[in-house]
C-alpha cells in the first residue's frame, strides 16, 4: 500500500452519526463481535452490527441450520439469541468497554416488541443506532416478514422511531423478496426511518438428493453470500435512484473491496460484510483497506465523493 492510497478520507456516517470506516459487520454474521477480536481491530471498523435481539432469549431452530450453495449458503438459525436482558448485561458492556461502536439489530413478532426494544436501548453507551430487522425469512409465517408489506413495515418503523433515543438513527432492513422494493423503501422512510439496510437474505431451499428431503431443519432458509450480490446491488441502485437523500447501508455478498466499491457507486454510504466473514474472519479490516486502495486508484479523495457515483 502506498502513501497515496492511505490518504483517502474513509469517514462516513450512519444518518447523523459519524463513523471512521464505511465497513461494518452484518447482522447475524458476527454474533456480538467478540469472536472477531483475534482477527480484526474492532475499534477501527465502522460498527459491529449485532445479531438481532428480541425481548426474550430465543433458542433458534433445530439443526441442520446450514447448507452450502454455489457461492453462498442457506441458513436457518431462527434468531438464536440471549434476549435484550442478556444483550444489555453482557454483550453491549463488553463492546462499550473497548470503545467498539455497536449498531443494534432488533427483531420481534409484534410492533410493540420492536418499540419496547428501542425503548430499552435508549441512551445505552456505545449504541450508535438501531437496525430494525423486519425482514428475517426464518420466521414461522411469511406474515411475520413485515418488510414484505409496506403498511406493516411502516407501522414497525414509526413505532421504533417514536420510542427510540432521538440521537440513535433508525435503519430499516429490507427484504429483496418483494415485487417493488422502492415502494417499501419509500413507505418506511415516510414512516421515519433515518436510513435503509439492504438487503436481508433471500428465501431459498435445498433438498438432499440422498434423503430426498429438505436439508434444513427449518425446511427453507435465507440465501446469502456472493451469489446474491447482483440482486443486492440492483436493490441499492433502484432505491438510491428513487430516494437519493436516504442513507443506505449496503450488504449482500460483499467479499472484496471492489465488491464494496460497487455498492458505494450504486448509492450506499456504508456497507456490511456478512457471509464473507465465515470464509475470512479478517474480512472486515481487509475490505476496508481494499476499498481505500480502490478509491485512491480511481482518484477519489474521500469515500463520500464516490457514493452514488454510478448514477451521475
Amino acid at each position, binding site marked *: 500500500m502506498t502513501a497515496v492510497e492511505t490518504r483517502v478520507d474513509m469517514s462516513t456516517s450512519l444518518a447523523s452519526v459519524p463513523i471512521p470506516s464505511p465497513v461494518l459487520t452484518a447482522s447475524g454474521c458476527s454474533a456480538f463481535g467478540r469472536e*472477531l*477480536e483475534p482477527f480484526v481491530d474492532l475499534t477501527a471498523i465502522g460498527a459491529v452490527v449485532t445479531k438481532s435481539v428480541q425481548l426474550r432469549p430465543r433458542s433458534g431452530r433445530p*439443526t441442520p441450520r446450514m447448507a452450502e450453495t454455489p457461492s453462498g449458503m442457506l441458513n436457518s438459525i431462527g434468531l*438464536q439469541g440471549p434476549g435484550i436482558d442478556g444483550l444489555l448485561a453482557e454483550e453491549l458492556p463488553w463492546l462499550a468497554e473497548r470503545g467498539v461502536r455497536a449498531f443494534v439489530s432488533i427483531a420481534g413478532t409484534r410492533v410493540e416488541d420492536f418499540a419496547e426494544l428501542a425503548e430499552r436501548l435508549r441512551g445505552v453507551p456505545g449504541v450508535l443506532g438501531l437496525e430494525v430487522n423486519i425482514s428475517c425469512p426464518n420466521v414461522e409465517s411469511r406474515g411475520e416478514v413485515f418488510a414484505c408489506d409496506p403498511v406493516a413495515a411502516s407501522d414497525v418503523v414509526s413505532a421504533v422511531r417514536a420510542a427510540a433515543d432521538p440521537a440513535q438513527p433508525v435503519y430499516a432492513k429490507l427484504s429483496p423478496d418483494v415485487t417493488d422494493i422502492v415502494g417499501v423503501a419509500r413507505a418506511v422512510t415516510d414512516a421515519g426511518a433515518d436510513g435503509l439496510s439492504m438487503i436481508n437474505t433471500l428465501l431459498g431451499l435445498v433438498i438432499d438428493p440422498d434423503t430426498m428431503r429438505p436439508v434444513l431443519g427449518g425446511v427453507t432458509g435465507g440465501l446469502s453470500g456472493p451469489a446474491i450480490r447482483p440482486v443486492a446491488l440492483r436493490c441499492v441502485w433502484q432505491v438510491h435512484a428513487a430516494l437519493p437523500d436516504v442513507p443506505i447501508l449496503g450488504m449482500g455478498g460483499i467479499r472484496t473491496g471492489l465488491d464494496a466499491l460497487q455498492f458505494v457507486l450504486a448509492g450506499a454510504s456504508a456497507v456490511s460484510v456478512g*457471509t*464473507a466473514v465465515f*470464509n475470512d474472519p479478517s474480512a472486515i479490516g481487509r475490505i476496508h483497506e481494499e476499498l481505500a486502495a480502490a478509491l485512491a486508484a480511481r482518484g477519489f479523495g474521500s469515500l463520500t465523493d464516490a457514493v452514488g457515483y454510478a448514477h451521475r
Partner: protein
Amino acid sequence: MSGLLTRPAPRAARPPVQRVAEVTGRRPLNAYVELTLASPEIAERAEPGQFVAFAIGADTSALLLRRSIAIAGASGGVVTVVVAPHGPGSTWLAALRPGDTVDVVGPLGRPFPMPEPGTPSLLVGGGYGAAALVGLAERLRMTGSPVTAVAGAASADRLCSVDELGAVADDVVVTTDDGSAGRRGWVSEPAAELIGTAGVVYACGPMGMLRAVGELATAAGVPSYVAVEESMACGIGVCMTCVLPVIGEDGRTRFARSCAEGPVFGGDRVRFADVGTLPHDVVGADAMGVLPA
C-alpha cells in the same frame, strides 16, 4: 448443582490466529490423507481436542464455508490433520500437495480437560476421529496417566492413528464393523469391558459412537469428554450453525456452539437423543412457540 459427572470444558488459554500455511507433507492413510502444515504459531498454541478451520480453494472459490478438522498433532512448528475426503471441500483439501498453501484458522475450540495426574484413562476413537486423540494420549502419559485406547471403524481401511496410539498407549484394542481388522463389532463393546478400570473416558468420532460411549461411561459413574464432529460454517463462533443441545453448569440446556463451547463437551452434558430437535426445555424454546407437552 447439576448432579453431573463432568464440568463444562474450559476455554483454551490462547486465542486463535489466521495464517496462510504451506503444506509440508502429504501421506495417504488408507481411506484418508494426512496433511502436515508449517504453522509455528498454531502449533505452539494448540492443545489436544482443538481443531483448525480451512478455507477451501483460492480467494474467489465458490465454496465459502470453512472446513473444520481436528488437530492430530502439533509439534516442531508443524500441525498435522487427517482429512477424510467425501464432499467437494474435503476432496480439495485431500488433493493438496507439498508446497501448496492453504488459509487456516486455529487452534479453535476448547481442549480436552486433563484429569488429576495419574488417573487411568480410556480413549475411544471412531474412524478418523481417533486422530484427535493422539496428542491427548501423549499428554496423559506425560502426566502419569495409564492410557488404554480403542480405535474402531466400519472397515480396516477406515481405521486411523492405530500405530500412533499404539506408540503411546499401554494397550490398543481395534474393532471393525465387518471384522476386516481387529475384533468384529463396535468400539462400545471393548469400551464397556474396559470402563471398570478407567477414571476418565475421552472419545472422538461419529455422533452415534459418542452417544454410546458417553452413556456407558455415565452409567458406570465415570466422567467422559467427547469431541463432536459437527459441520461448521465458520469455526470461530459467529455463524450459530453448529449448535447442539448441551446441559450447562447451571443444569439448564442451551443450544451450544460446537466450535466455541465445544468441540469437547462432557459426555453426560450432550443430549444426544435430542440432537436435531428443539426440546421444550432448551433455553429460549418458549420464545419459538415450543411449550411443554
